[in-house]
């Protein structure tokens, strides 16, 4: 199979209400943008119209049925007042550098970016569209021309504002940079389009956490895009935490390019949303890069999460390591699709992929698919997947030691995910994500 397959698109005949409902919004965004961005938005909108809404006949969307989204009368999210400031503050930690967006709009009130450490820029995109035009144009280029991913095009066409983070050469940022996208819809069936640009220069070091939280139980649609560039010899930790409303649909794409000898630790935690799709693609554009792509999902009721990872090894002597783990209960459904490409030049690649599940319910379902396409001959690539069920002998053993079934399930679930959390390099983020995860685990059984 050739890599061409990746960019293949399937024309869809299915209804796409987004095109009708967001036509005006698209024009408005174009009008409000500087020339270079207006062009990108125009191209992206045309691209989205051309590709259309993917259906389950499309290989990449086989298990993620978008028909409910295609039929919904979605509209742009208006600015809705926060009912209780405490709801937002709960997610803010004074120790961090926080940049907060409410329904896709930058919130000066909740952000703490006035006194930043040396070598760090954190601001909202709208402020720097002119000043940083060249750099942004380069970052956006990836998503405006022939992008295979319709929801990246859609976001480019429609995003209102976003986060811009720049870590200068040699800067070592000790505080966590926390981007928080809060969705608190005024009415149901609204859509938000969070956008993030994260650029780390050479020999720098930083940890970035991007959180998606929902403050209502309404149904809404989040379509997020995060573009990341990791400079030479830089260590970047990028953590994504998705805890949207249990009725929401979340489709997020993270795209990373890594320069020589850089280290990336990317981790994705998915506990929210009725349906969530996480795409992450990493391109090793320099020699000697090291990429960790880990993920965790904890699902109950009829939640669905679909993780698509792609590592494109384009240079020699690179390593990548993927570990995705999921705990499923009730009728939940998890999909994992892990692509590893090793280009002809990328000799001495060492790539590893593992996808593990713990099934607590009898009606949950997992579809897992490794996809390795290797065009170099001196490489080491391994992959595997496991599905374990709750073992009744284990539960009985707990019970004979005074621990009831619910606590046993909690302890086993926690035991299942602890190794992946313990690995996270940033202690502060590890603590935050552990707390969020434990809350979810505590209501699993």
């Amino acid at each position, binding site marked *: 199979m050739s890599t061409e397959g990746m960019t293949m698109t399937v024309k869809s005949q299915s209804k796409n209400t987004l095109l009708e409902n967001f036509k005006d919004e698209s024009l408005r965004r174009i009008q409000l943008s500087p020339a270079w961005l207006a062009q990108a938005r125009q191209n992206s909108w045309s691209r989205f119209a051309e590709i259309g809404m993917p259906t389950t006949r499309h290989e990449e969307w086989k298990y993620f049925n978008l028909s409910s989204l295609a039929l919904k009368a979605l509209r742009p999210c208006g600015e809705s007042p926060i009912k209780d400031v405490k709801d937002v503050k709960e997610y803010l930690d004074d120790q961090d550098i926080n940049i907060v967006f409410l329904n896709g709009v930058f919130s000066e009130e909740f952000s703490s970016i006035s006194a930043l450490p040396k070598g760090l820029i954190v601001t909202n995109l709208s402020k720097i569209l002119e000043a940083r035009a060249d750099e942004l144009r380069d970052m956006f280029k990836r998503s405006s021309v022939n992008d295979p991913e319709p929801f990246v095009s859609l976001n480019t066409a429609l995003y209102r504002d976003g986060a811009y983070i720049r870590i200068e050469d040699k800067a070592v940022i000790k505080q966590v940079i926390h981007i928080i996208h809060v969705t608190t819809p005024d009415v149901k069936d609204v859509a938000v389009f969070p956008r993030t640009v994260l650029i780390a220069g050479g020999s720098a070091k930083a940890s970035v956490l991007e959180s998606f939280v929902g403050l209502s139980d309404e149904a809404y649609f989040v379509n997020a895009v995060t573009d990341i560039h990791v400079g030479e010899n830089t260590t970047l930790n990028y953590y994504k935490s998705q805890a949207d409303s249990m009725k929401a649909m979340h489709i997020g794409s993270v795209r990373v390019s890594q320069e020589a000898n850089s280290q990336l630790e990317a981790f994705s935690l998915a506990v929210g949303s009725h349906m969530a799709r996480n795409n992450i693609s990493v391109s090793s554009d320099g020699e000697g890069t090291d990429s960790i792509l880990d993920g965790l999902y904890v699902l109950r009721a009829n939640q669905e999460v679909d993780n698509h990872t792609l590592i494109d090894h384009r240079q020699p002597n690179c390593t990548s390591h993927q570990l995705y783990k999921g705990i499923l209960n009730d009728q939940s459904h998890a999909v994992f699709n892990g692509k590893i490409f090793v280009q002809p030049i990328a000799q001495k690649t060492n790539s590893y992929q593992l996808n593990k599940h713990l099934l607590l319910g009898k009606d949950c379902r997992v579809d897992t698919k490794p996809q390795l396409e290797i065009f170099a001959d001196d490489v080491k690539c391994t992959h595997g997947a496991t599905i374990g069920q709750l073992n009744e002998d284990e539960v*009985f053993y707990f*019970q004979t*030691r005074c621990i009831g079934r619910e606590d046993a399930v909690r302890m086993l679930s926690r035991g299942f995910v602890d190794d992946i959390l313990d690995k996270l390099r940033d202690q502060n983020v590890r603590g935050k994500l552990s707390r969020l995860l434990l809350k979810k685990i505590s209501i699993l059984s």
Partner: protein
Amino acid sequence: MLEIKNLHAKIKETQILKGLNLKVNAGEVHAIMGPNGSGKSTLSKIIAGHPEYEVTDGSIEYEVNFKKINLLELQPEERAREGVFLAFQYPVEIPGVPSSVFLRAAFNAICRHQGAEEMDPIDFDKYVRSKMKLLEMDDKFIDRPVNVDFSGGEKKRNEILQMAVLNPRLAILDETDSGLDIDSMKIVAEGVNKLKKKDNAVILITHYQRLLNYIQPDVVHVLYDGKIIKTEGKELALKVEDRGYDWLIK
């Protein structure tokens, strides 16, 4: 302390216990011997409350603090909190859960049940380590996931550690001696002997007389085809060792 009357039990469609009677008083050590398949492990699992076995007739009465409890009405964890402890013949591996966490959760469940205050992690750590020392266990052991990658002997020793920590009223040891070398067996036996008090009781299920050299039973039973067919003092174990079971069965 424990009185089993006319116990009948089956697993799926196979009848295993067929009218078993057993009475154990506080302060006593009982040994239950018997050929393979006679129902020894089944008896221990039923006392502990394994959900796969169905009790079709009979009763198990358990007396604790002058209060009589129908054990069959309790969930396994409730029985455990009342002081019933089963040392497994094949201890189960619990991946991802360190022994320290597991033991503390078990211990604190008993504290809560008794209305006592839970022990804080530091005090508990000291308490567990003192027990580990008695059983000559390695310090690192407590941080490892329960029974995962333990040798057969380590698993058995871990069962005895759990028993020592939880300090049960009624301990049932299901073939704890099998798979143990002689040194480990001595240590395990010592652990059991330390537990022996006037208000505790121990039931040893064993194939061999060997263990009984180190733990002196007050009463020895022979279980065959789902019933106790012979009950005597400790000399019965020697007779069985010498002559096998045939003379009892015929």
